[in-house]
């Protein structure tokens, strides 16, 4: 158990990083009402773009921004496939994801794996987050504000604040309306096709940013790194929703719940690893089961534990 507690900072850091991706998934899955599978590809795109640019000496913030833009481009492709070419959203996402596999390899000069030279202290010190900093802060060789939990926590809060503001604007409201009811949105003069593309771009931009942070954190980008990301994202969204839906009603708080959902997910994974609860080869099965269970909870609740409806209490007009 002590091992688990010691491993917590790392698990929380990783959860926070994946939480940013999960917020992206929330935007498409919950707000746009699209299950966007581009995520599995664009996550790696973000990591690959970041590592390649940063290794070539590009400024860290510029590299992060470029990673985000690359993710937005991926979202743009999925969006255009869906809206202009009329391909169902799930399939459009799968097509982009498949194509991104090659694109990601091309970004990494046809290598499946590109690393950051974290052995070199000059490179390490330039990074925003690293798994190494978790230990360094606890040993006191780095100030607390370099702890990944603090850094990614601040990034997350900033992202939530910006999204909270954005989805309160005229444009943001029209995106929400697009996801809630397309017929109504069009009747109110909203260009639903453009909004879907825009939503997919914002979502995948966040996913790629998350990928860039993770590759920085673990020290490499790998062609396989986004595989199953959508499941982790959905897990975070659903865990957050099941636990906090009663207390968090505000939009910003719902995004926060998603981030906390991702942290909980990684704490569970870390718990399983630290306590040797099961063979780590069963991790993927565990993930699938966690998502399936949390997805079925609201359904079963509604089906078998519904509160009796008050008769005559509802005013019909």
């Amino acid at each position, binding site marked *: 158990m002590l091992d688990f507690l010691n491993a917590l900072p790392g698990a929380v850091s990783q959860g926070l990083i994946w939480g940013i991706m999960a917020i992206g998934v929330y935007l498409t899955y919950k707000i746009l009402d699209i299950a966007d599978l581009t995520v599995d590809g664009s996550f790696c795109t973000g990591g690959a773009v970041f590592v390649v640019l940063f290794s070539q000496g590009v400024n860290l913030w510029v590299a992060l921004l470029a990673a985000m833009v690359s993710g937005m481009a991926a979202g743009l492709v999925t969006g255009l496939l869906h809206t202009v070419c009329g391909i169902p959203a799930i399939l459009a996402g799968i097509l982009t994801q498949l194509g991104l596999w090659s694109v990601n390899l091309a970004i990494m000069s046809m290598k499946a794996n590109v690393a950051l030279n974290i052995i070199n202290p000059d490179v390490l010190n330039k990074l925003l987050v690293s798994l190494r900093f978790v230990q360094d802060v606890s040993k006191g060789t780095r100030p607390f504000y370099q702890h990944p939990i603090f850094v990614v926590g601040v990034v997350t809060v900033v992202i939530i604040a910006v999204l909270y503001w954005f989805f309160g604007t*005229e444009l943001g409201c029209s995106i929400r309306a697009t996801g809630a009811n397309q017929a109504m949105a069009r009747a109110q003069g909203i260009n639903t096709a453009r909004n879907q593309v825009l939503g997919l771009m914002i979502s995948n931009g966040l996913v790629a940013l998350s990928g860039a942070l993770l590759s920085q954190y673990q020290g490499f980008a790998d062609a396989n790194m986004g595989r199953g990301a959508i499941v982790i994202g959905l897990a975070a969204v659903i865990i957050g929703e099941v636990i906090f839906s009663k207390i968090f009603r505000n939009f910003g708080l719902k995004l926060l719940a998603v981030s906390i959902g991702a942290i909980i997910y990684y704490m569970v994974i870390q718990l399983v690893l630290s306590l040797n609860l099961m063979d780590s080869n069963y991790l993927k099965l565990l993930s699938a089961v966690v998502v399936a269970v949390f997805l079925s909870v609201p359904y079963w609740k509604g089906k078998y534990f519904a509160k009796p409806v008050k008769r005559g209490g509802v005013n019909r007009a």
Partner: protein
Amino acid sequence: MLKIENIYKTFNAGTVNEKTALNGVSLHLKEGDFVTVIGGNGAGKSTLLNAVAGVWPVDEGTITIGGVDVTRLPEHKRARYIGRVFQDPMMGTAATMQIEENLALAARRGKRRFLGAGITKAEREEYREMLKLLDLGLEDRMTSKVGLLSGGQRQALTLLMASLVKPKLLLLDEHTAALDPKTAAKVLAATETIVQRDHLTTLMITHNMRDAIAHGNRLIMMYEGRVALDISGEEKKKLTVEDLLAKFGQATGSDEADDKLLLG
């Protein structure tokens, strides 16, 4: 205000399910006209409204609203000229958004949406006053999700949204059909008030002949994708259900119309 010239629309062309829904419809509405539309199932009433709203492009013909040719404009661009209320109460509002947010969306119909506030304080006050006029108690629930409202409340809200920015044309597609009689009467009364107050040019589909006769200054009846009857002025004021059935029989040369119309 609205000029429909000889429009055609065939669904599933070239398949066994081919169906000519609009077969050369022409219709001119003057400013302030309140036209009720009746007709049996499959007569093309809803198809006509959808053609005007731009849900899909027509095969032939032109549609002009207030002098602007909108035939080639996509649905969301035509929305600038048109207010709509649908048959299904779920369709006209965003269930997961608040009442005031829905109104704010409607207030921006036909305007560019960018990074300005989605809803302002001044708007909230304005909406509260408007909701008070509906007399449904919604002014105290402005931050409630629309999904929590009853069907009648939602239709009333949709009606308010459709007229929030004064439309050149109001399209009502059997908007009381899904409501119980008492609620339907209330919503219809609200419709009459709003149309009169704002002098809205209106096309209202109804399945109820009495409503069709009681409201509006003009009545058209559709049959097999065409306008079969067009009654206005004094003639419309004196119209009875029996007259209507007789006229329909004459116009179409069919006597199987009675049941179809009454039941449809």
